[in-house]
């Protein structure tokens, strides 16, 4: 705050100077409205700032002064000699105040008082004094307010909130106000839809919903009204006190409410009050019983255990059952859709909601933090660095990041390999490091973090890095490329992932036994992950692994080609577009223009050899993979779909573009496409690049 204060003082001195300047102008031309406006503005800024930064005297003083000019501005007061004199004297006084940092000596204080009185005489501002005393009271009330709320005894209010249709025009979101009511105490809100028009007549920019809220709080009705302070003019709010105690704590009342409150009708307050009476009578009888029960349950709670151990087999079973449930729910939803029955539809919708929650919960149970495998790597670093006589510090960050346990299991081996590489080939010996001007101790950092629906694991060392020239040489020696092949830095680096490529000049005991990084890539892609490498010679190497949060159920986009369904992982879907048959069939150079940009197009019909029933309009789904965008043409997009991934049979193991299958609601099977593999299999540019690489290899050997 101090630094702001200083700034304000500088600013205030500027303001006061300019105020003096404008005042002198006004003296020449007392009727110029613009000058008066300017004076008012400057005073206002000065007041705002001084109150903000605790210069009370200055604040009070400018406030009085401002009032004068406000009156002049609106024409109830006219500038005269006296006002001019006082204002100029006031400005002088403000300078004194500013210089002394809001402090005054005896003479100053006297002057302050005299000036204030003279100003007040002008405005004769009764009104303002009243306001002041009101403010004082407000503060007192705030202070005496007891923060701790005894919910049981807090009275219950019934609040009707009826926003006007045009409430959105002021940028108000009425839901936030309902949310805010929840912060006041125990609260239950019901939405009312009786004013909602038919879809055809619905204006999306109008608000048709109303709310009825039960709130149990020890705050006063004024405090509740305060929630709606911004919307008094665009929203009708009525507050009825319906009970002295918290009705929401009475279960028989809340269960009655669900039937009593109808979404399509306004609730009659009188009827509600009689319901409350009924419940209160009933409740008194049950009270004694409840107290006894409460004692019992609190005793039980004490004995509760917060953690239990479950064998992972049981979790796998649970996971499988949930998968089955999700599949069955899909068929129920489909059935409900084709049968026009509102009851069935609402049941299906509920089941969908619950199974989604169940799915999320089960996933969460199956998640374990990366921390659990960290101990192994700590050990590895310690042992290995001793053996190789290197000094290495291992730092793990974000190890609380959680992953599905099957992913963690699949992750251990490849990570071991990466660590070995980093220790063995990455980090130099202490002498070498000192020679290079690096700290004696090498560093390996493992960083885990979430990003979207993925988890990233980064292993970073500050060792010698990878010499791309060496890689290049080696690739030429091994016949992967010819000396003429032009490859970018990244492409060169990625050569290390090729099978049979190892950069270690010397085969050591620990790594470089011919088991190269290609195995890492293979294992990571088994758990649907990706590996990326970055390196700078002399600075270090970073390997980044991108992993899905879970393996067995994914959110997908269901699409259709002819009579066959396919699922695209939603995480890679960017946008959907419409394209004519002509555009798709005759895409020049296999590019299509989407959103004004040329994007490579894969015509799936052509690639899958489906030739019947060519539609007039195709849908092009733009998928995003590693910053590479590509359009996939399909016949139609059906919608979002929770796909339970099932592996394909053994005979399909060789194919790559399909990562699994899922059973749809009607029992048919949809294939789940892997966008990454589709790009590498069908995209012309990617293929061409690879062909080039391969051709040179062929010529070589």
């Amino acid at each position, binding site marked *: *705050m101090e630094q*702001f204060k200083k*700034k*304000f003082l500088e*600013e205030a001195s500027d303001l006061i100077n300019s105020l003096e300047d404008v005042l002198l102008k006004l003296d020449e031309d007392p009727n110029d409205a613009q000058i008066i406006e300017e004076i*008012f*503005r400057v005073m*206002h*800024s000065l*007041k*705002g*700032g001084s*109150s*903000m*930064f605790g210069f009370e005297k200055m*604040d009070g003083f400018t*406030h009085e002064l*401002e*009032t004068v000019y*406000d009156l002049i501005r609106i024409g109830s007061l006219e500038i005269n000699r006296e006002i001019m004199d006082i204002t100029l004297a006031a400005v002088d006084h403000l300078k004194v105040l500013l210089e002394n940092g809001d402090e005054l000596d005896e003479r100053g204080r006297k002057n302050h008082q005299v000036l204030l009185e003279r100003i007040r005489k002008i405005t004769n501002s009764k009104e*303002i004094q009243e*306001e002041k005393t009101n*403010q004082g009271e407000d503060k007192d009330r705030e202070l005496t307010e007891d923060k701790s709320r005894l919910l049981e005894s807090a009275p219950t209010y019934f609040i009707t909130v009826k926003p006007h249709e045009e409430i*959105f*025009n*002021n*940028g*108000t*979101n009425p839901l*936030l*106000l309902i*949310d*805010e009511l929840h912060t006041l105490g125990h609260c239950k809100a019901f939405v009312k839809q009786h004013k909602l028009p038919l879809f055809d007549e619905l204006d999306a*920019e109008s608000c048709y919903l109303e709310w009825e809220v039960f709130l149990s709080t020890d705050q006063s009705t004024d405090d509740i009204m305060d*929630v709606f*302070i*911004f919307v008094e*003019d665009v929203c009708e709010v009525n507050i009825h006190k319906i009970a002295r105690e918290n009705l929401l704590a009475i279960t028989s009342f809340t269960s009655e409410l669900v039937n009593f409150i109808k979404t399509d009708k306004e609730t009659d307050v009188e009827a509600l009050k009689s319901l409350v009476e009924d419940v209160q009578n009933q409740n008194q009888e049950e009270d004694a019983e409840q107290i006894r029960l409460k004692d019992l349950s609190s005793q039980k709670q004490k004995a509760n255990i917060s953690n239990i151990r479950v064998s992972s087999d049981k979790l796998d079973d649970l996971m499988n059952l949930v998968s089955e449930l999700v599949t069955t729910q899909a068929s129920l939803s489909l059935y409900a859709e084709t049968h026009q029955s509102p009851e069935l539809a609402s049941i299906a919708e509920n089941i969908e909601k619950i199974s989604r929650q169940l799915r999320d919960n089960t996933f969460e149970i199956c998640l374990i933090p990366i921390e659990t495998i960290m101990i192994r790597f700590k050990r590895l670093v310690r042992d290995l660095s001793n053996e190789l006589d290197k000094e290495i510090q291992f730092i793990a960050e974000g190890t609380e990041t959680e992953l599905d346990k099957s992913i963690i299991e699949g992750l251990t081996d490849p990570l071991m390999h990466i660590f070995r590489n980093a220790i063995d080939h990455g980090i130099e010996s202490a002498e070498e490091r000192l020679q290079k001007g690096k700290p004696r101790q090498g560093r390996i950092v493992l960083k885990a973090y979430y990003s979207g629906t993925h988890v990233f694991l980064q292993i970073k060392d500050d060792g010698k890095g990878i010499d791309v020239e060496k890689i290049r040489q080696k690739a030429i020696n091994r016949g992967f490329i010819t000396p003429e092949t032009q490859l970018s830095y990244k492409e060169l680096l990625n050569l290390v992932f090729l099978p049979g490529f190892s950069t270690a000049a010397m085969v050591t005991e620990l790594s470089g036994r011919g088991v190269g990084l290609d195995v890492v890539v293979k294992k990571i892609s088994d758990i649907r992950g990706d590996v990326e490498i970055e390196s700078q010679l002399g600075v270090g190497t970073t390997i980044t692994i991108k992993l899905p949060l879970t393996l067995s159920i994914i959110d997908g986009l269901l699409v259709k080609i002819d009579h066959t369904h396919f699922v695209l992982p939603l995480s890679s879907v960017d946008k959907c577009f419409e394209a004519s048959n002509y555009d798709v069939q005759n895409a020049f150079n296999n590019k299509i223009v989407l959103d004004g940009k040329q994007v490579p197009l894969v015509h799936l019909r052509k690639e899958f050899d489906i030739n019947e029933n060519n539609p007039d309009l195709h849908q092009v789904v733009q998928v995003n993979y590693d910053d590479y965008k590509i359009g996939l043409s399909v016949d139609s997009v059906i919608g979002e779909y929770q796909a339970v991934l099932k592996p394909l049979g053994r005979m399909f193991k060789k194919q790559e573009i399909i990562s699994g299958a899922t059973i749809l609601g009607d029992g048919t099977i949809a294939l789940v496409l892997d966008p990454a593999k589709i790009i590498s299999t069908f995209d012309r540019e990617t293929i061409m690049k690879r062909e080039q690489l391969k051709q040179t290899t062929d010529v070589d050997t």
Partner: protein
Amino acid sequence: MEKTIVIVDDSESIREVVGFTLKNAGHKVLSAVDGKDALKFFGGDKVDLLVTDLHMPEMNGIELIKEIRSKDNYKFIPILFLTTESQQVKKMEAKQAGATGWIVKPFVPEKLLAAISKVVR
């Protein structure tokens, strides 16, 4: 969640103290010295909230609010204006221009954040 908040005031100290409070609360703050200057943030980029003073030299707060409300992209964004106790008339005028709510000067950080939480989340 991080929100993009535009703060408009001709007083640098107010801009700084509001900006400081909002940044501390984890928001992205863009500041402008007056209405005209503020318009540069409303060319299509996402803005979650506008906090503006009413008295400013070039294009005052009321004009700014009207201008913003006339833009399709920002028709429904919350707008708060800074005001003092004594300005009841201005309050009505600003509300009619399309403001969502107001923040009474002087304010402590908690009061500022409470007002903001009323209109954006």
